């Protein structure tokens, strides 16, 4: 029983990161219908920048976080103006491929500036933890989970109650109609990219505290955004975190009982099931099935 409980805790912790990656992914997709394959690379870039800030320059927690988040927001701006702005309306494969190209560029850039060797992870967050029964819970996991919940709630509120959020929802709903009522889609797309990169910045910063080493294999986590986002519903901001946590829990429990090689299979089989039974996910819009 305590074994199951341990897997659950690990699943929730890992799932929080998946949820944050999926959140950025969903935001971009919802606003611009670009499937962003570079979301994992954004996170990796943020983790490396966190290493630069906290380990190399020994900045404090607040300064490092600010540095990473600002840098990533700039990446978001570059993504919009430099890459995707021209390509809105192209076939989906082209858009996917452009983000893959960006991912390759980020990867090459990191390899160039940081070299192929692993970097030691950041330790700005309190170490240690507490136990529930006989299951250890680290503070880092608690913080990760809190950050994920706060981020999701903040963006949910942003979409619900701010003018910009309303504009973004309107654009996602119907681009033409949004244009008619005077919303500038360029502004909305820019905002979506900035927010997505911003979320990746936060996720990458905290993830750099959790992993053992920061390396170029970190971007693999970006792939988990797919099942997480599909599970929550690809257009659902609040679904992303819940989807992420479900994927995290399922794969940790599955891998815990059957062995590590089952991780991918569990994470993606659950996605396949959702697709075949309820393609719109748990919280997604129904009519999107007819895309």
């Amino acid at each position, binding site marked *: 029983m305590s074994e199951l409980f341990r897997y659950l805790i690990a699943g929730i912790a890992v799932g929080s990161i998946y949820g944050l990656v999926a959140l950025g992914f969903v935001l971009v997709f919802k606003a611009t219908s670009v*499937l962003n*394959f570079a979301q994992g690379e954004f996170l990796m870039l943020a983790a490396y920048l966190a290493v630069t800030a906290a380990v190399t320059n020994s900045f404090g927690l607040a300064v490092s976080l600010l540095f990473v988040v600002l840098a990533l927001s700039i990446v978001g701006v570059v993504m919009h103006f430099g*890459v995707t702005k*021209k*390509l809105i*309306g*192209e*076939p*989906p*494969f*082209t858009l*996917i*491929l*452009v983000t*893959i*190209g*960006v*991912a*390759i*560029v980020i*990867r*090459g*850039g990191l*390899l*160039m500036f940081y070299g192929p060797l692993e970097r030691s992870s950041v330790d700005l967050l309190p170490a240690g933890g507490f136990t529930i029964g006989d299951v250890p819970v680290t503070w880092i996991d608690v913080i990760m989970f809190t950050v994920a919940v706060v981020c999701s709630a903040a963006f949910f509120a942003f979409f619900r109650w701010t003018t910009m959020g309303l504009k973004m929802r309107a654009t996602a709903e119907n681009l033409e109609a949004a244009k008619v009522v005077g919303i500038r889609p360029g502004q909305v797309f820019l905002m979506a990219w900035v927010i997505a990169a911003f979320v990746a910045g936060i996720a990458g910063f905290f993830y750099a505290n959790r992993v053992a080493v920061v390396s170029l294999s970190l971007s693999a986590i970006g*792939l988990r955004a*797919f*099942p997480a986002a*599909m599970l929550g519903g*690809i257009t659902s901001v609040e679904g992303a975190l819940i989807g992420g946590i479900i994927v995290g829990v399922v794969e940790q429990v599955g891998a815990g009982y059957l062995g590590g*090689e*089952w991780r*991918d*299979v569990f*994470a*993606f*089989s659950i*996605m*396949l099931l959702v*697709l*075949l039974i309820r*393609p719109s996910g748990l919280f997604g819009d129904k009519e999107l*099935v007819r*895309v």
Partner: protein
Amino acid sequence: MTAQESAPTIQRRSSILSRQFDHANEVKLLQTRPQRVTRVLTLIFLLVLPFLLATDFSPPLDFPWATWFTVVNFAIIASIGAVAMNLLSGYAGQVSVAHVAFLIVGSIVGAQFGEIWGVPFWFLLPLAAFWGALIGVIVGLPALRVRGLYLFMATLAVHFIAIFIFRRYQVDQFGFSGIVYTAPTLPDWLLWIPGLDEGANGEFTIRGNWRWYWLNLGVAALCIGFAANLLRTSWGRAFIAVRENDAAAAFMGVNVTRVKLLVFSASSGLVAVSGVLASYYLGARSDESWTLEIVLDYVTMIVVGGFGSLLGGVFGAVFFYVTPVLLSWVRELPFLENIEWLQEHGHAVDQMMYGLCVVLVLLFKPSGIAGMWEDTRDAVGRFVERRKQGAADEQ
């Protein structure tokens, strides 16, 4: 957008190439004389190429001549896969990333039938096509229910499940180190052909780039020819109808279910053939060989090459294998050689430049290399037409 773009194209074609738009002409494999001339030139080039590559010619500026044979062989094998993917995604609009899954089918067919049961290599190609097509129908089943992005995601799941199955199979049957494929031999009854020098044991083994080139070229010609011919049939037109709007296609009497399953099985069969070919060419495969990057590489090939164009698949495969070699050659040119920073980060620079190439092609020419080729062709056609016009005016 589409209407605006397509209208001038039709006009340009009909005015410059003065092509008749009758049905009999439209379904021909080669419709115009320039097309036939280009094909013949391509054929001559492909037949002469290995003779050039086999020489130990050493071009100026350390151009990497010796590595080209391998690059060409990889490009030929990959072009089968790229054409198959373009058939499925570009023509029929079924966005699938289960590409590696079918390369795995080819690898497992090679391992199980060829290595364990000792079936001769020549039977493995049709066997791989058969199993690929059969499993393709099963993988195509979700396409009947979901489409677009959702199909993409469903096939992504298939990708990971296939890798898992391969790992299980490999560990069970061959151990952790991977599967080793023995080089195929030509059947004995073909040895009378003059010019085949059999080895010491009286067998003609397909080994080395020279021999593989002819095998790869033959198989690729068959596969790509199959795809090109399939597109000329009513099935081919049904693919495009389903891509554009499957409800409208159904309304016009296209059996959408059958079309989707057929295109999945045709494409998957071809991919499986390229899978078994690549496995034997490389000589070994293990669970480390399969990554999502391979699928993304093929996506790169078909989009950079030209989405929805068979020629684009071939162009893309060549681009994919040739560009890295060219980039690393450029990096070591005399005037760049001395820039220390560049040499130190050589690999990263190559990778980044490659990524930039991809992004730039898409930004400035979304129809890819096939689009550039068409532009060039049209420009030449227009030039010839103008010359003719000028000559006619003078008279």
